[in-house]
Every structure is written in C-alpha cells, then in structure tokens.
C-alpha cells in the first residue's frame, strides 16, 4: 500500500541523507520526495511517498522518529488530507496536433507555458491521478520530457502536522 509521510525536520545539511538512508536500508523505493522550508525557517518539511509492507513501514517510521534531526513524523491518510503535485510536460506538437493538445490542457485546467516550433510545455497542478490522466492522454503525441515535483500534502481543516 502507498503511504504519504509528512516529516518535520531540522533545516540542516545531511538530514536528507539520514532520512533516505533508513528507507534504502530496508529496501524501500521512495516514489516521490518533496522538501521545502516551513513557516519556521529553521524547520523543513519533507513529504515522502513510499510503497511497502505495513509492518516494515511502521519500523521505518519508528526509526525516523529516533533521528535526532527529525522533529515529527506523520503517516497522512488520503481521506483526511489534500495533496497536490506540479508537473512540467514537454510534448511534441507540430502545427496539426497543436489545437488538440491545447484543448486537452484546457480541459485539465493546465497552462501552456512555452511554445517552440515543434513542442509545447504544459504546466499542470493537481493530485497525482489528475496528472497521470493528462500525461496518459498526451503520450500518443510523444512526451519529450517530463519533470514532476513529487506530492505535497496537508491535513484538511484546522488540524496541522506541527511540532508539539
């Protein structure tokens, strides 16, 4: 099962290596990882998406909690959270295909942010399934390159994943 972990960590060098090391040691592949500072510049947030055996993941979470630079770890449930990802997609787009591609982008409320003679770059924001749905449709035109940020998540409502 896929899990989304939200971590508050010290904004210090080496923290990412400490965190990722615990996953690789147990053979977990990290599906996506997004890091950025929080409202407090001394603290960063990592959103990590991993897939793996629940019992082993529970061990990993306990080990993450033991890291001195990790302040808090939450396993965020999809039903109680909102999540977004951003992707940039460079699609092959000759003059003939261009209208159809722009229409697809429009339907997904994506934006065209660069136009070349034979390519378009589309920026899309949404949850993971929305991005997958659009890229699936674009595939037949030929995707030259794609960059995804990895998912970021937040709890719905007033609750927050915060330092206690």
């Amino acid at each position, binding site marked *: 099962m896929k899990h989304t972990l939200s971590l508050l960590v010290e904004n210090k060098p080496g923290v990412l290596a400490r965190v990722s090391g615990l996953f690789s040691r147990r053979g977990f592949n990290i599906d996506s990882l997004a890091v950025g500072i929080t409202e407090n510049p001394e*603290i960063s947030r990592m959103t990590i998406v991993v897939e793996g055996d629940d019992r082993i993941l529970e*061990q990993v979470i306990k080990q993450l*909690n033991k*890291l001195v630079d*990790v302040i808090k770890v939450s396993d965020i449930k999809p039903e109680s959270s909102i999540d977004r990802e951003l992707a940039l997609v460079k699609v092959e787009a000759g003059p003939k295909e261009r209208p159809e591609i722009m229409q697809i982008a429009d339907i997904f409320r994506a934006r065209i942010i660069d136009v070349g003679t034979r390519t378009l770059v589309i920026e899309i924001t949404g949850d993971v399934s929305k991005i997958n749905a659009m890229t699936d449709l674009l595939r037949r035109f030929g995707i030259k390159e794609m960059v995804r940020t990895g998912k970021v998540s937040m709890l719905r409502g007033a609750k927050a994943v915060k*330092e206690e």
Partner: protein
Amino acid sequence: MSKKQKMSGAEAFVECLHKEHVEVIFGIPGGALLPIYDELYDSDIRHILVRHEQAAAHAADGYARATGRVGVCMATSGPGATNLVTGLANAYMDSVPIVAFTGQVPTSMIGNDAFQEANITGITLPITKHNYLVKDARTLPDIIKEALYIASTGRPGPVLVDLPKDVQTEEIEFEYPKNIKLRGYKPTSKGHPLQIKRAAKAIMEAERPIIYAGGGVVISGAHAELLALAETLMAPVTTTLLGIGTFPSVHPLSLGMVGMHGTKYANYAMTESDLIIAIGARFDDRVTGRLDGFAPNAKVIHIDIDPAEISKNVAAHIPIVGDAKNILKELIKELKRKPKSKWSEKIEKWKKEFPLEYDRKSKEIKPQYVVEQIYDLCPDAIIATEVGQNQMWAAQYFKFTKPRTFITSGGLGTMGYGFPAAIGAKVGCPDKTVIDIAGDGSFLMNSQELATAVINDIPVKVAILNNKFLGMVRQWQELFYDRRYSATRLDTSPDFPKLAEAYGALGIEVTKPGDVRSAIKEALASDKPVVIDFQITPEENVFPMVPAGAAINEIIDYGEKI
C-alpha cells in the same frame, strides 16, 4: 553574568571536555588533530595512546560499560577515522555511550579528495546514534555538550564529532552552554501508568511467568528492582548475553542465559511460559531461534526505552516505553506477593535434570574448567571476552552476580573486542581485577595493545583458551559441514607467552589441568599485564546449542546427536 573568553577551537574543545568531566581519552594523533593534541599536552585530561584506532573505540566502549560513564576516543582524519568504524558499529549494536572525535581536513578542502580525507560522517551515518561535522568553531561548545548528552541518555549509543583542522585553530568567544536545545530528541523515561496497571493485571493472572532481562537493565541500573520483582512473584529470571550480571546467577530463581547457547532449562521455561516479562531486551535472533516456535503460548509484556524495539521481532501485548528502573518501581507497587507454584517446581526439576555439563575427568585442559577456576580464584573480577567459543564458555561458567562485570560484544560479535575493552574497563575501574577471556584467533586481532597495557601500566590479564582453531566456526564445520575445516586451523599462531614477553608483559604457558590454578594465581599476583596460554582440547564444543533454524526448545546438549 557569564564572562566570554577568547580562545581557539582546540582550547575550547579541551575546556568543554573538562566541563563534562571527561577524565580520559583513548586515541592516536595525526596531522588533522595537531592543534587539539597540542592543547592536550598541557591538560590534565589523561590521554592513553593506543596502537590501533579500533582499540581506541573498544577501550572507550569497555570503559563505558564498566563505569556507566561516557567513553571518549579520538582519531585523526581518513584512515584514523575509518579504523574507528568497527568500534562504533559495535557500540551502536550494544547501546554503549561513547563519543568519538575525529580530525578532518580543513573545511575549504572537504570534498576534494584531500590527503587523509574520508567522509566519516557519511560512513558512520547508519552506525552512530547521531553525528556532527563541525563547520564553525562557534558551534563547537553546543555540539560537544549535545554529543555527550545524546550518547548517554535514552537508549545510549555512539556519537561522532568530526573536527576540521581550521575549526580547531579558529578563534572564538568561548562560553559553555548551560542548556541543550534539541527539538527532535526527547527520550521517554516514565512508563505509562495505565500500561503499568495492565501489565500488573496480566502478571497476577499468569500461571507460568518468566522474566527475560537484557542489557537495558544494566544501563538503567535496575538490577535491585529486577531482584525485587522476581522475589515478589517467585518468577524465574533468564537473561540475554548482555543482561548477564543483572541477576545473581547463584540465585535459586536464576535460569542463566537463554537462546542459542543458553541453558536447556531457560529455553524450556521460555517455550512453556504463558507470560514473558521482557525488560530492556530486544528478542534478538540468537535469543528467539525460529520465531514461529518461540514461546507459542506466551503473552508478552515488553518494557523498553526504545519504541522501535516494541513488536520488532515478537509482538508485544502490553508494551511499556520508558526507563526500566522507573517502570519496575511503579510496577512492583501494583503487585502482590506470589507463593511458589507448580511452575516453580517444574523449573527446579528441569534445573536438576539438565545442568551445564562437560567432561570433568579429562586429562586435557577443558576450557570450562579454566573459566570455573578463574571464577573460583577471582569471583569479583570484571570479565571481558572476545567473540566465539571463549565468549560462550565465559557466559556459561563464570557465576556473575553484579552488573557491569561482564564486558562482551553481543550484537555485532566483534572478534578482537575483548582485550582493548578490558584495558578500557581497567582504566575506569583501577581497583578491580580485569580479565579478558580470549581465544587464540580473537586475541591476535588486537594483540598490539599489549604495548598500550605495558607502557601505561594497565595490568589486565588475558586468559587465552587456545584450541589452535577459529573454534566456533570449526564447531559449525564439524556439525554441519562434515568436518571440512576450511580455513579454521590456526596452528601457525605465534608463541603467545613469548609474544607477551616481547612487549614487556608476563607470559605463562599451561599445558596440564593440574597447572591451571597455579597459573591463574601467578597472573593475579603479578602487577604486570599477563597473558596465559591455556592449551585446551582442540575440538571442544560449546553446548548446549540450538542449531540454526531450530526452535529454542530443540536444544542439543553435550553428548547428544544433532
């Protein structure tokens, strides 16, 4: 009203160690540590020059285990630092509080493959509790205070601090920090009262309880509470290898060690119990044997300071996270005295039926006999061991009664650990006799430390149980590989007594059982480091034994067939 003083990073380093009451450092200097060693030259902190950095880490570890204080070791950048790695991994596996300081190339050269550069914080990431690369000398006082605090609190462990050369020479305004600010580090020490109540209820309902005590009891200093718990419940106590000494092995409720080379009765009692009270123990594979055959009918109360140990290998029905001593104190208040039961009788019967056995009439020197004689002549000694058969015989036949008297590498199983650890223990406890029970294979892995022991006047005694084999591996080859002794013969070892003499220590050779006691007496009477070479039965095996992949009640005794 604190006064700030101007000083170099190296001066600040020494000043910080003073403030933390560090009395001894085990180490070897090098180019990247010159500024610090120059400061140490005038300092009253004792520095013990070892002859290989691995021994510095093990000595700090032995010092920490024997005294309960943080052990400190030091090595230069690059190869000096990488030589510490085994010692750090060893301390990490056994939760030993040590702090390692390493020299590093100047910050401007880090990452350039400079001379004697190694990324030691990267290398030691998975084998330290935490580590630091100091990039700014102004952060040094905070970091040193944190390092010692992290190493010694919660579940203890090794911490490494990497010190670039320019950080050591940089001038700072020194002020020793009063407080520690660590947002992400708050170990739990008090057990949850509701969980303690639930545990007490389960204990009072149990008919066949067993107490399973580990190294956490030593660390927490909970041995008196453990004894009170056992006597209140009249419950048998078995220990892990690292738990040895937490419960007097001469006590009628003692079952000795459990697991692969534990006693038959400990393994039987564990298997048939209906409640395991695990205290500071982690259900290691050497304890549990095949997991699905481990204590199939038992509920598990698991007391541990590390939440990550709960239900890691064996599911805990009632976990209690916190310090063992605190929790046991609260738990005992909730309990009522229990009388002897049928369960006690059954266990007493097992103990009579399956005692530890070896050939006591042999004309050869039996290693078990040597250990028994060491115990008889020096029951209060601190015993260090190497790893393998020597370690198991020491664990089985020396009757430990006090915590911090058995110094052994459990989790990592590091050959070459015992001798430098014994040196560290002797430095920490100069009034105690410290004996390393060694094998001929293990001893050679750090025998260069004879120089350290002799020059620094650290009179540890080494009892080599010399079977001219890598004995434990040979035992497995005998039992499971058709006696094909591939690469386990050590008949070309040096003459150990002569080796000892070459360093200025005393060497004694013993070839007959009748000379064992006089040799031990001679060693104890000498004020020098001593190496006794006991020429034991070459193909003696460690029994009882649980074969790999078997359940712990499928244990084989002396003379039984596998």
